[in-house]
């Protein structure tokens, strides 16, 4: 859906093939410079997409952009983040923020009075999350918006870096 098939884009084929031909130093430069351009751009899109504190702390602040010589990988929920008082861990539960949860879910457990008499307690346990949404709330919309730009930034960085390398310029 948001992925571009390499077979359908000659531009990306060119990028991937030429990167596979380049030497180690040049490849490293391309990765570094693409990272420096794409990372902040995607981070910005995520920051703008987060609509509440939970999304901003759990999704936007845990964003990560990974550059390889053949792909650009975007991720969220990759870090523990700034910390949550209730112990929420984005590395484990980021999906709940991105795709929502079953707000109606209840959990029933036994509790007891002072005298020892027990009774059932039923509580909603996911009311604090947004309802389920397959299309996602922050990460996927950000990708939908940014994917073409990210790939074109990548292409441009490759071309520019090769050019600089040919001219013997340091980055």
């Amino acid at each position, binding site marked *: 859906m948001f992925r571009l098939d390499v077979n359908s*884009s*000659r531009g*990306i084929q060119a990028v*991937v093939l030429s990167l596979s031909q380049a030497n180690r130093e040049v490849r490293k430069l391309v990765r570094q410079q693409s990272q420096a351009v794409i990372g902040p751009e995607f981070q910005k899109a995520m920051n703008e997409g987060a609509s509440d504190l939970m999304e901003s702390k759990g999704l936007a602040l845990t964003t990560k952009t990974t550059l390889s010589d053949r792909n650009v990988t975007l*991720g969220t929920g990759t870090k523990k983040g700034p910390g949550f008082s209730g112990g929420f861990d984005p590395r484990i539960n980021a999906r709940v923020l991105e795709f929502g949860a079953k707000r109606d879910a209840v959990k029933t457990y036994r509790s007891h009075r002072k005298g020892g008499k027990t009774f059932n307690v039923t509580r909603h346990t996911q009311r604090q999350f947004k309802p389920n949404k397959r299309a996602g709330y922050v990460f996927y919309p950000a990708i939908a918006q940014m994917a073409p730009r990210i790939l074109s930034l990548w292409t441009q960085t490759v071309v520019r870096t090769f050019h600089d390398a040919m001219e013997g310029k340091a980055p």
Partner: protein
Amino acid sequence: MAKPIELSLVANVNDFLRGTNDVEKALEGVGDELDGLAKEAGRSTGRMEQDFKSLAREVKDTDRVIDNMSSSTLKNAGSKTAAFKQEAVANFSEVTSSFSGSMTSITDLVQGTLGGVASGIAGPVGLAFGGAAVAVGLLGSAIASVGDAAEADGEKAAAWAQAYVDAGGKILTTAQTVAGAQEIILDPARYQEAKDAAEEWGVSVSVAVLALAGNEYALAEATKASEAARQQTIDTAYEAAEANRDLTKTEIDFASEAVAGGTRLRELQGEMAAGAQQADVFSEALRLTAENTEGASTTVDEFGDKVTALPDGTVIYIDAETGQATTDVDAIKDKIYSVPTNVDTTVAVYGDFTNLEGGLANIFKKQQKVPVGIGVLKQYGTNY
């Protein structure tokens, strides 16, 4: 437990690289592509062919340079690229000026330019930077077009075909376009599409709605605006290539919008053309029926149009100019109305025309010499 949410933007890369056993050969293949482009363009100017051939040759040489390049030799390579850069800029300008004006030639340009970068990683940097503007749009539209676009196309074309059959010709009636526009405005999704199209084409929303409904005037307006945006994109890309600078974000956004608008317009026109073709098949079938039915009586009226009455009472009308066949009496009526008249005399023409006899059809047609009046207009509800 669960892992982070991750997504790689490019699909099938590993398979693609694994399938490319000989990378050098694959890159050379792109160089050949350049050569092919040169042959095409050579028809207009011989010099351009020369340039492309030499570029393709140098691109192959550069492959070797790159291969042997280590960090210590990076500095020495600098002087060699200067010449390439010059040539690349020259080539770019020629590719740009050879644009035929069709949107498909944009794709050719991108393939030519980025292809050059691929095979050489060579000097054509000005070239690639200019092409990047267009590439942005191309990448964007490539992503957008993944999905069931092909399936939708067939359905839309069928809808157009129905409209053309209803109209009995190559031009939709005003009533049809107005009804179509109304449909778009009342459907939130299609209205949004019209708003997007308006932004991309640089026209007002009302014009975009009419264009999407198939109105000729609105389509011409949209084409004009989209063409202007495309021209501006090319100019910007050329200027950037010459100045050897990166495109700004605004320029890239503009370019991608222009290309998206062009794609949308091309798709729309493609669907309409496909629909017209399907309608043609129907009209051809009618014509064959008219010509090959036993016992049919054919008369030629004073306009050279053939009116064939079949034994079962069906009347098939074949236009002399366009060769379009139709059974729709309304369409014949439209043709009459299309003759400029002063709407002051009222001619009452009543009756059931679906079983019109050939002779009667002739009489009916003769009446177009007489100014046709309001009474008839009202009766058939044609919106003029």
